[in-house]
């Protein structure tokens, strides 16, 4: 569900035409300049927060606040990045360890939901069975809920699972990365099923029908035909799931108590609170390092992400 916040609709790929000018004639120089000024101003507003954070991150550590607006501050330095990598918050935990915790949650939740999700998506998209519509409605109903909807019962239920493990000692499923991962799956799985079903619906049935005529079983059709064709959608769904796990906040913040379990999102939140003494340069360097992995993938794989999502195919 968190992932769906970043859904992109499919974009048609027909030749470009102007809505204003009826497709003929060229821009007068005056008009061109006016539109350029408008576009550049717009670009400035889009880029400003990014430039601001970048310039803050170059401030030296002995300055807790910026001295003013400047692209490259005086005495610019990369000290803040060094500090972030070594120990960004007051907790004795490095950026690498925080990132590793986030990766564990994100990778686990996204892989599990895609692998299980594609099986269910195949059944919903291709097989006819009794109860199909009811079950699909159940998925859609869950999909409608924000992740906060399952917060309370999951907290209470997972908290009941407390074990005395031989080596690890006391283990509380609620207060563990595993518990948070499970909670994320509870929101991610319905999204994966729905999105993958939408994609499978767009795959033409000719191949499968040919295979069926030749005697291929349902399983063979799924593993030999559907699965390879659905790879782009699997990759995109897994990526979106990964990003929502990478930046997950609600569950981790409420469930996790141990400093060693902290995630990137938790550290970011604790850095910008009212009562923190984190220099802005450290906060900014942290935000940049945190944002870069998903942003880079997103920026360069946009076309594939767009085409791997089902929402464009859904008629309102």
């Amino acid at each position, binding site marked *: 569900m968190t992932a769906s916040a970043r859904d992109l609709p499919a974009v048609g790929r027909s030749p470009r035409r102007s809505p*204003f000018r009826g497709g003929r004639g060229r*821009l007068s120089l005056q008009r061109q300049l006016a539109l350029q000024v408008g576009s550049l101003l717009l670009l400035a507003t889009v880029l400003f927060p990014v430039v601001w954070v970048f310039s803050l991150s170059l401030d030296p550590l002995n300055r807790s606040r910026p001295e003013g607006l400047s692209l490259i501050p005086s005495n610019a330095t990369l000290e803040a990045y060094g500090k972030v990598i070594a120990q960004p918050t007051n907790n004795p935990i490095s950026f690498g360890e925080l990132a590793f915790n986030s990766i564990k949650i994100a990778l686990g939740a996204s892989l599990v939901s895609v692998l299980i999700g594609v099986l269910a998506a195949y059944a919903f998209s291709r097989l006819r069975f009794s109860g199909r519509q009811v079950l699909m409605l159940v998925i859609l109903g869950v999909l409608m809920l924000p992740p906060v909807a399952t917060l309370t019962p999951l907290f209470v239920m997972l908290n009941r699972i407390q074990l005395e493990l031989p080596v690890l000692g006391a283990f509380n499923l609620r207060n563990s990365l595993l518990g948070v991962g499970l909670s994320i799956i509870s929101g991610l799985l319905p999204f994966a099923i729905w999105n993958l079903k939408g994609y499978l619906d767009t795959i033409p049935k000719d191949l499968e029908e040919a295979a069926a005529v030749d005697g291929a079983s349902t399983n063979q059709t799924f593993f030999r*035909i559907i699965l390879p064709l659905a790879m782009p959608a699997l990759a995109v769904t897994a990526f979106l799931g990964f990003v929502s796990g*990478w930046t997950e906040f609600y569950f981790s913040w409420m469930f996790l108590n141990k400093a060693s379990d902290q995630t990137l999102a938790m550290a970011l939140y604790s850095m910008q609170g009212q009562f923190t003494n984190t220099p802005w340069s450290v906060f900014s360097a942290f935000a940049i390092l945190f944002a870069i992995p998903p942003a880079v993938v997103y920026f360069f794989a946009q076309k594939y992400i767009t085409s791997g999502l089902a929402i464009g195919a859904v008629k309102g």
Partner: protein
Amino acid sequence: MTAVATTIEARAKGRVRGGILGGGPRRTRIAYLYLVPAFLVMGIITLYPLLFQVWMSFTDYGIGNLRATAPPPHYVGVQNYVDILASQLAIPNFHFVRLILYNLFWAFSNVAIHVVLGVGIALLVNTKGLWFKKAYRALFIIPVVIPPLIVATVWKNMYDPDNGAVNLILAGLGKFLGMAPDAFRIDWLRQVADPIPFIPLPLAFFAMLVTNTWLGWPLNAVVATGALQSIPNELYEAAEMDGAGPWQRFRNVTLTYLRPAMIPYAIYGFVITFNLFHLAYFMSAGGPFGRTELLVTQAYRLVNDQKLYGVGASFAVIMFFILLSITLVTNRLARATQAVEEL
């Protein structure tokens, strides 16, 4: 390749079964096999918790009932529901009707701005002969690629009253007009007094509206661009020949083609914005005095800060019905607009 391999293998086995869409008990059994993993997992970590939550909502489940050995909570009937709906909760700044109205207005105002700006900017960057068109389109997508959590924290920093970028820029502009820089120590996210006397909305609302506009219009522009590019050029030429001016061409051709793409997306955006946790929680923290709280952030606060698990459960159930009504209404709207288009 794969299909060929399958064909050959199947032929070698010499078996032929019914068509792919054929029903029958055997198909049904296979279908259930494919569904078992998903529904097993969902049953345990999604559906059962949701039902458990309904039971919790009729109890006074609190922090004392958390431990495995703790006594069970007391049954309190619909007390939690009554307390929420009547705004009688023992927590500060909780007013249920205000919360819902604000949340609806928040979603509606944001989406209206996103759609209008998105369409306008799509028209701008689709203008024929505009230089650097591709570069603009590529760069305008930047807000979309940054995780919302980070957008919220960075904008909170920019709204800082003392050293924030927004006040620094305003002070810089003010200098030209001969204003003292101290005039711009605006506490964007915490100021208590409403900026516009006759509109009961705090400054934090407007500040977050700006942030969410920055965040929201690019995707709308992408959707609008897709729709614009699907308009056949002949339509404009025909309209022009019939003597239609630029405004008429825009209204009758451009808007007609934009509507079917934009309306479903606007509805989708409405639901997303309605449940937008990050800005309200990270930027204003619901303040001042809980006036920019959304249902999702209030729900989170009830359980995370106040540890009122029973009340939180009731709140989640109420939220479910609110979201259900919104979905039903928007579905009906979508169907109505579709019907109009088919006329």
